């Protein structure tokens, strides 16, 4: 035995250790991947040996490779082996690997429960600490439930090192297993007054994190925290406590009043900038929450703003950043106090640091007025030219639009200017989503401001013209969407509609949603042109236009997108009808020669009537508020879903089960069953639809051309490809056109000033004379709905903190309690049920594993084995077993989905504290 050990050690000497691996990778820079795959082979060899030391060496190397992006989950079982070593050195390697590669959905975790429990109860505090640290990275619901009592016991350990870690660990347990919170809370509360400062600050940390999400349950702790705040000198803990008070005060104004004094004292006395900053933050929160009830709260705000100004003026960029950040909180409720520092904020816009500029941009929102809007926007446009990253550009763009459009364009006096700004913006490069923003803004302005339409439409027509000939199809495409829609909708404002129509016809490869808008608006435009031509009797021109449009539609109808097809075919039919009518008119005109000026019904008016009616702005949530008519079940199937596969021909009796399991099988994102038709299905349904359409009197019957196109997908080669017409000169706009409005405004202002000097008494009334442009401010809503209707979808369903919303106090806040009691008992009941269920399945699973283990001593691939036995069993045992299996599998799946959700939704938590020097801002 001893000999074997020695032999193992000697062999080990010649194995590569971690240092060799790192060195090897550095020496093989050219073919790193090859070298690493070779090392992986070595590692696999080493893992096959019995010697734990060799294994741990291999695991250490794997941990390094994991950092480089290699998946090491296949070695999970070996990691657990190394974790179970009796030597601290090896154990450490194993636990480190586990914390790096395991996660709460790892199937192997259930093997670790007893091992970790043993470790937690170890005599050696470092072994227990090791297990706690590692466990905190991958704790699962099962582990949390099974180990919560062990961890709770550790809270009263004699060693502060363990207590500290156990306190933090409890938070992780609560997140995964909310039922543990109620019994554990009194113990946690005790730890707030632990003799050891480290434990104390860990407890503060955990309570802060809990209270941040559900502050009302922790109000009763306020006195304890208040005492801590006034006695402790530990800056880390103070920061946490002060942050916590910031979350509590909105719920309890009396607390806020009590806080103001000690906080202002701290602001004046502390030398630590981090503490000062947090104090200011909380004072702001307090003042906001009690803004009415305090006589001298203006003084408080003033103090904060002053202190923040000092921060912003500081040469330390970090303080500048934080100062601006806090300012934005004040801006929301006390805009006037911030506006006093406009100079400073505008100055920050010029800062070389992007983070600071971004923060200053946030504040700009409150800085604009009618007078300085143009100037500020001009500055931002200049930044836009200089900006490098698209992130900052995008931010600038959305801020420009935000400040211009706030309060229904309250500050815009010159809408022509705004349109040109938007058009200028459209010609810059942005991230992919920004084109849409500009487009919808253009549409919005035109709909709301009637006076601007003719100008805007002219601009849009020009845009459409310019971009037929260039290849700048980036952001512009989305703007073209707006351009096409506006020119079509307000065609009557166009000066040369026929030219615009021809421009639109020239566009070839557009994204599908834009193409469908184009088709629609080509018809609108055409109807408008036709009206004037028909009146003038220029039938030949109309016929020619018809032909041109027909050519375009015949191409569009071949599109892969249904929407485009649909619109194109509708358009085709309309144009064909028009063509017939006009041709007959033309003939009659030729035959009669002398035109009888009979006020014959115009074809155009009929077409125009298709598009009649004014469009008004619609409230953002209007769609949601349309009531569902009685008797309409939105969840009911319109057509029964077709059985997707024959393999699952289970008896119908298991109905419920399968509907559920389907849900999880098809798409983890959308829970709805999505039926994906095959090509055959499509063909069949298409034919069925055609047949139906022909028999349906309400359908416009398709003409020959549409039939032709339905099988037109095969002759792609026949699609005529014309050369881009480059004869139109490229229009390059060098100077921003929007600038001229700024100059204009300046001129006006100077004129006004001189006027004012002359007519002193009249100045007040004349200041607003230039712009009384009406802006439509009302929004369309379904009857009975109001804008202020609250929406209940704020709360994320999958936020684990919701489960932690448990009322923890019995005595002091009796009224709050009585309200909450029903909730609590509900959740408790649920919790118990869940517990029972999951325990059952847990036991089952454990048994399974045990038996498998017995079958094969070397469990190399646990997962695979699991599946294999499953299959074998199900084959032999027949249907009954299968059903049960499915049930439990479904359960498992559900469980998984739940845990996944919770891990994804998990957003927030916290940090701790002990004394430290504030060394970087001295």
């Amino acid at each position, binding site marked *: 035995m001893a000999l074997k050990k020695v032999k193992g*050690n*000697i062999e*080990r*000497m*010649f194995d590569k250790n*971690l*240092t060799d691996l790192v*060195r090897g990778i*550095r020496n093989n820079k050219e073919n790193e991947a090859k070298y690493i795959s070779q090392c992986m082979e070595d590692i696999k060899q080493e893992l096959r040996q019995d010697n734990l030391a060799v294994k741990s060496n291999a695991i*250490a190397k794997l*941990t*390094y490779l994991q*950092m*480089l*992006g290699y*998946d090491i989950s296949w070695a999970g079982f070996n990691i657990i082996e190394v974790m179970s070593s009796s030597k*601290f*050195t090896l154990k*450490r*390697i194993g636990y*480190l690997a586990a914390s790096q590669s395991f996660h709460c*959905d790892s199937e192997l975790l259930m093997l670790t429960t007893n091992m970790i429990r043993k470790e937690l109860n170890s005599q*050696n505090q*470092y072994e227990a600490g090791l297990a*706690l*640290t590692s466990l905190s990275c*991958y704790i699962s619901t099962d582990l949390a439930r099974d180990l919560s009592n062990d961890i709770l016991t550790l809270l009263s350990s004699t060693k502060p*090192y363990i207590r500290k870690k156990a306190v*933090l*660990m409890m*938070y992780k347990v609560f997140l995964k297993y909310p039922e543990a919170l109620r019994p554990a809370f009194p113990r946690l509360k005790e730890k707030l007054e632990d003799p050891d400062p*480290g434990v104390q600050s860990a407890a503060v*940390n955990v309570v802060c994190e809990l209270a*941040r999400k559900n502050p009302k349950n922790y109000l009763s702790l306020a006195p304890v925290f208040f005492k801590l705040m006034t006695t402790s000198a530990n800056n*880390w803990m103070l*920061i*946490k406590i002060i942050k916590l008070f910031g979350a509590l005060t909105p719920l309890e104004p009396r607390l806020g009043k009590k806080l103001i004094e000690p906080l202002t004292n701290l602001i004046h006395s502390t030398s630590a900038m*981090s503490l000062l*900053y947090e104090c200011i933050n909380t004072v702001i929160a307090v003042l906001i929450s009690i803004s009415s009830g305090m006589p001298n709260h203006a003084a408080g705000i003033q103090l904060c703003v002053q202190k923040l100004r000092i921060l912003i003026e500081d040469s330390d*960029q*970090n303080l500048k*950043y*934080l100062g601006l950040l806090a300012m934005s909180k004040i801006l929301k409720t006390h805009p006037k106090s911030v506006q006093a520092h406009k100079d400073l904020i505008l100055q920050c816009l010029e800062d070389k*640091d*992007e*983070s*600071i500029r971004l923060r200053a941009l946030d504040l700009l929102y409150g800085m604009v007025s009618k007078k300085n809007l143009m100037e500020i926007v001009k500055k931002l446009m200049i930044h836009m030219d200089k900006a490098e*990253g698209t992130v900052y550009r995008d931010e600038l763009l959305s801020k420009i639009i935000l400040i211009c459009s706030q309060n229904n364009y309250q500050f815009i006096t010159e809408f022509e200017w705004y349109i040109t700004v938007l058009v200028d913006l459209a010609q810059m490069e942005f991230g992919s989503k920004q084109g849409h923003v500009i487009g919808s803004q253009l549409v919005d302005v035109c709909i709301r401001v009637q006076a601007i339409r003719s100008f805007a439409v002219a601009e849009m027509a020009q845009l459409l013209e310019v971009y037929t000939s260039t290849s700048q199809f980036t952001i512009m495409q989305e703007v073209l969407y707006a351009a096409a829609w506006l020119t079509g909708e307000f065609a009557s404002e166009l000066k040369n509609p026929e030219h615009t129509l021809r421009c639109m016809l020239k566009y070839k490869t557009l994204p599908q949603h834009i193409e469908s808008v184009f088709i629609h608006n080509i018809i609108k435009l055409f109807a408008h042109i036709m009206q004037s031509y028909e009146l003038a009797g220029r039938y030949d021109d109309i016929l020619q236009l018809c032909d041109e449009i027909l050519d375009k539609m015949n191409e569009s109808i071949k599109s892969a997108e249904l929407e485009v097809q649909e619109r194109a075919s509708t358009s085709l039919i309309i144009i064909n009808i028009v063509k017939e009518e006009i041709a007959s008119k033309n003939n009659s005109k030729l035959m009669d020669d002398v035109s009888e000026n009979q006020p014959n019904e115009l074809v155009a008016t009929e077409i125009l009537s298709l598009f009649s009616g004014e469009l008004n702005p619609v409230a953002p949530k209007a769609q949601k508020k349309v009531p569902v008519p009685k008797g309409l079940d939105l969840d009911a199937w319109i057509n029964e879903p077709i059985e997707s596969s024959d393999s699952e021909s289970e008896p119908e009796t298991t109905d419920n089960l399968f509907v559920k399991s389907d849900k999880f099988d098809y798409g983890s994102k959308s829970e709805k069953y999505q039926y994906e038709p095959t090509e055959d299905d499509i063909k069949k349904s298409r034919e069925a639809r055609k047949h139906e359409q022909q028999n349906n009197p309400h359908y416009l019957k398709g003409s020959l051309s549409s039939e032709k196109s339905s099988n037109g997908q095969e002759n792609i080669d026949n699609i005529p490809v014309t050369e881009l017409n480059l004869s139109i000169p490229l229009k390059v706009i060098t100077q921003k056109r929007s600038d001229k409005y700024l100059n204009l405004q300046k001129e006006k202002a100077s004129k006004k000033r001189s006027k004012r000097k002359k007519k002193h008494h009249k100045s007040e009334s004349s200041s607003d004379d230039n712009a009384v442009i009406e802006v439509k401010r009302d929004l369309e809503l379904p009857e009975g709905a109001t804008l202020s209707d609250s929406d209940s979808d704020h709360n994320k369903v999958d936020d684990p903190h919701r489960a932690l919303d448990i009322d923890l106090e019995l005595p002091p806040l009796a009224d709050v309690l009585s309200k909450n009691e029903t909730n609590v008992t509900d959740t408790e009941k649920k919790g118990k049920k869940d517990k029972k269920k999951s325990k059952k399945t847990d036991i089952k699973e454990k048994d399974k594993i045990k038996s498998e283990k017995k079958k094969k001593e070397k469990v190399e691939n646990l997962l695979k084995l699991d599946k294999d036995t499953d299959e074998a069993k199900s084959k032999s045992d027949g249907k009954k077993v299968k059903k049960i299996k499915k049930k439990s599998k479904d359960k498992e799946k559900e469980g998984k989905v739940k845990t996944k959700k919770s*891990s994804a939704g998990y*957003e*927030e*938590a*916290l*940090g*701790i*504290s*002990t004394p*430290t020097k*504030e060394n*970087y801002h001295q």
Partner: protein
Amino acid sequence: MIKAILVFNNHGKPRLSKFYQYFPEDMQQQIIKETFQLVSKRDDNVCNFLEGGSLIGGSDYKLIYRHYATLYFVFCVDSSESELGILDLIQVFVETLDKCFENVCELDLIFHVDKVHFILNELVMGGMVLETNMTEILTRIEEQNKLEKQEAGISAAPARAVSAVKNMNLPQQIKDIKLPDLPQAIKDLKF
């Protein structure tokens, strides 16, 4: 709460990655890459805060980083952490490394990632700050190292000797031959 701690060099090579929320390996690499791109283009005299990247976190998260010589130390934290506090914590972390490695440099992190992890584990646990008092941290690390040495005893001696020889073969790695190791190995041999 801290969501991730990343250390990488001026070329974006990862030297330490610790995620307190699970991401698959390829995602982790992408995050490191994105973070590097965000951080590396910033001058040294700008502020140390950065609105989080698109991959990690979201609007509630911030990147707080410090740049030391060839290394970037980046913490991704949410709004419950004090910004200046985390900057302090990074400083504490680096100072602790400096004490443990005696004038820490990038090479130390390259060859002893495991040790760096052990040190970090004494500062931060599961995304929450565990300890910020450097003396306390150093004592804990020292005691655990002692524990390892006790265990090593005679059985580790030959391996240690071999690795020492291996190290000597490469003169450029002189710094990595830990002087304290040699006497220790000799002592072990005497037994």
